[in-house]
C-alpha cells in the first residue's frame, strides 16, 4: 500500500544550474512558444502567461488554480455561425490554427498526472477536437515538490511528489543551485534542445529522493473506493455534505474536473458562437430538467456524485482516477470540506 518512489526509467538524467533555468525558458519563449507559469500577485500564486521569465515564482506550495486551462480553457469557442435561421446559415468550424504552441512550466506532479484524467474524459469514445488540438501543442515541464502542506495527499491516490507521470520533462531541485532534469518524452527532448548547451550531464549517483517532500499516505485508496462503491444509500454523504454551501470552487480549481456547459453567445443578426464553459456538478441547476424534475436535487446527492465520479465511475469506465491529491479543493473551499479527511472516513466505514 505504501507508495514508493520509483527511480526514473528515463535515464540518463541531466542537470541544469538554477542560473541557467531562466535563460533556457527565455530561449523557449523566444522560439515563439507561450509560457504559462506560476506568477505571484497579491499573495496568490497562479498559472499565467508570462511576458518575461522573470515573473515566474517558484516559492509556492500549490497554485490556487490548476493548469488545466492550458488544454481546457474556462471559456472556449466550439464553432461560429452566421446567417441565423434563414436558409443560408454558414458554419465556421473550430479553428485550431489560433492555438499557440504552449509550455506549462512549474506544475507539480499532481497537476501533470491530472492531464491523464482529462485525456481519459475527453477521449472516451468520441474524440474532443478542441481538447486534442490543445493537447497536441502543449509541453508540460513539471517540478517535483520539495515542500507540501496539510492539504496535500498525492501519495494516497497513487501519486508521488517526484512522480514523472504526465510530465514531458520533470525538474527536481537538488540542493539550492540547480535541478535534476528527467526528460520523459520526445516533446520534452525537443524543448531541452532549444537550449541544449545550458544542460549538463547529472553527477553520477545523484538521487532526487532525498530532496522530495514527504507526503504521508493518509488512506488506502483501494479500500476507500471499494467501500464508497458500496455505500450509495449510506447516510455518510448527508453527514459529510451538511456544511457544503453548493458553490463550484472545488470543481473549478480541480485539475481533473472536466464537466462543462454548452452555451450560446448570440451576437444578433443571426450570428454567434457556440461556447463551452466550465460547469460544476455541485450546482443545483446542473442536472435540473426543464420539467422541474431534478435527479440530484439536494446537495448530498451532488456531493456523492462528485466523489463517486472521481473515485469510482472514472476508474471503472475510463481506467483513470479523477483525483490526484493536489488538495486544491480543500484549500479553496469556503467551508473547509477537506477531501482527504472525508475520504478517510470512508475507509473506516462498515459496509
Amino acid at each position: 500500500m505504501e507508495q514508493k518512489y520509483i527511480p526514473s526509467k528515463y535515464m540518463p538524467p541531466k542537470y541544469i544550474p538554477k542560473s541557467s533555468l531562466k535563460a533556457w525558458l527565455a530561449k523557449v519563449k523566444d522560439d515563439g512558444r507561450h509560457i504559462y507559469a506560476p506568477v505571484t500577485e497579491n499573495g496568490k500564486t497562479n498559472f499565467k502567461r508570462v511576458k518575461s521569465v522573470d515573473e515566474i515564482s517558484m516559492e509556492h506550495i500549490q497554485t490556487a488554480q490548476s493548469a488545466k486551462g492550458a488544454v481546457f480553457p474556462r471559456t472556449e469557442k466550439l464553432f461560429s455561425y452566421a446567417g441565423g435561421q434563414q436558409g443560408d446559415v454558414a458554419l465556421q468550424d473550430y479553428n485550431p490554427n489560433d492555438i499557440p504552441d504552449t509550455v506549462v512550466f512549474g506544475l507539480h506532479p499532481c497537476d501533470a498526472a491530472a492531464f491523464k484524467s482529462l485525456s481519459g474524459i475527453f477521449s472516451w469514445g468520441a474524440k474532443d477536437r478542441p481538447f486534442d488540438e490543445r493537447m497536441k501543442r502543449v509541453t508540460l515541464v513539471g517540478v517535483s515538490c520539495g515542500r507540501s502542506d496539510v492539504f496535500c495527499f498525492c501519495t494516497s491516490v497513487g501519486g508521488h511528489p517526484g512522480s514523472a507521470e504526465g510530465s514531458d520533462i520533470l525538474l527536481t531541485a537538488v540542493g539550492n543551485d540547480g535541478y535534476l532534469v528527467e526528460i520523459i518524452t520526445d516533446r520534452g527532448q525537443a524543448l531541452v534542445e532549444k537550449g541544449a548547451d545550458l544542460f549538463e550531464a547529472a553527477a553520477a549517483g545523484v538521487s532526487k529522493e532525498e530532496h522530495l517532500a514527504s507526503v504521508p499516505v493518509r488512506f488506502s485508496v483501494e479500500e476507500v473506493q471499494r467501500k464508497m462503491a458500496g455505500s450509495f444509500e449510506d447516510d455518510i454523504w448527508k453527514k459529510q455534505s451538511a456544511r457544503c454551501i453548493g458553490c463550484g470552487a472545488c470543481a473549478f480549481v480541480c485539475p481533473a474536473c472536466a464537466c462543462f456547459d454548452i452555451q450560446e453567445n448570440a451576437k444578433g443578426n443571426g450570428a454567434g458562437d457556440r461556447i463551452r464553459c466550465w460547469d460544476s456538478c455541485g450546482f443545483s441547476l446542473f442536472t435540473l430538467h426543464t420539467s422541474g424534475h431534478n435527479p440530484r436535487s439536494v446537495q448530498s446527492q451532488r456531493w456523492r456524485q462528485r466523489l463517486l465520479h472521481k473515485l469510482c465511475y472514472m476508474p471503472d469506465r475510463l481506467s483513470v482516477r479523477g483525483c490526484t491529491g493536489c488538495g486544491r479543493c480543500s484549500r479553496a473551499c469556503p467551508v473547509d470540506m477537506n477531501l482527504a479527511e472525508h475520504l478517510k472516513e470512508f475507509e473506516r466505514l462498515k459496509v
Partner: protein
Amino acid sequence: MNTEFEPKILAFVCNWCTYAGADLTGTSRIKYASNVKIVRFPCTGRIDFMLLLKAFANGSDGVIVSGCHPNDCHYTSGNFHARRRWIIFRGLLSFLGIDVRRIQFSWVSAAEGAKWADVVNKTVADVRALGPYTEYRKAAEFLAGNEDVLLKEQEVTP
C-alpha cells in the same frame, strides 16, 4: 468629409412624461441632436439597471434616463423608486470606474419639449468630448479564459 466622432446615445424614457415631452419637442419644431435613439418604458421604475449596462456593451457611447418629475409619476411613486436605484447605481458604477459622465439622468415633463432638446444636446456634447466608449465594449467582447486574448488586451490598454 466630416470625420468628427458622432456619439450613439440611447435614451430610456417613461411613457407619460419624457416620451410625451420628446414628442412635444418635435411638434414644436425644436431642432436637436439626432444621435439619440429613444426606448419607451411604462415608467422609470421599470428601467432595470442592467439595461444601461447592456446599452454600453452593445455600442452606446452614452445613455439618457429620463422620466416624470418627483410627485408627477403616473403610478404615484415609480420615479421615487427609480431615483433611489439611480443614486446607488451611479455611485456603484463610479466606484467600479465606469464613467458616469456618460449617463445623464433627468426629469422631463410632457410640457418640457425645450428641456428635452437641451438634455439631448448637452449629453451629446458631453459624450462627444469624452469620445467613444471603447473600454467598455472591449471588455464586453472579450472572452475570458482565452488568456492569449487577455494578454493582448492588457498590452493595448494604455
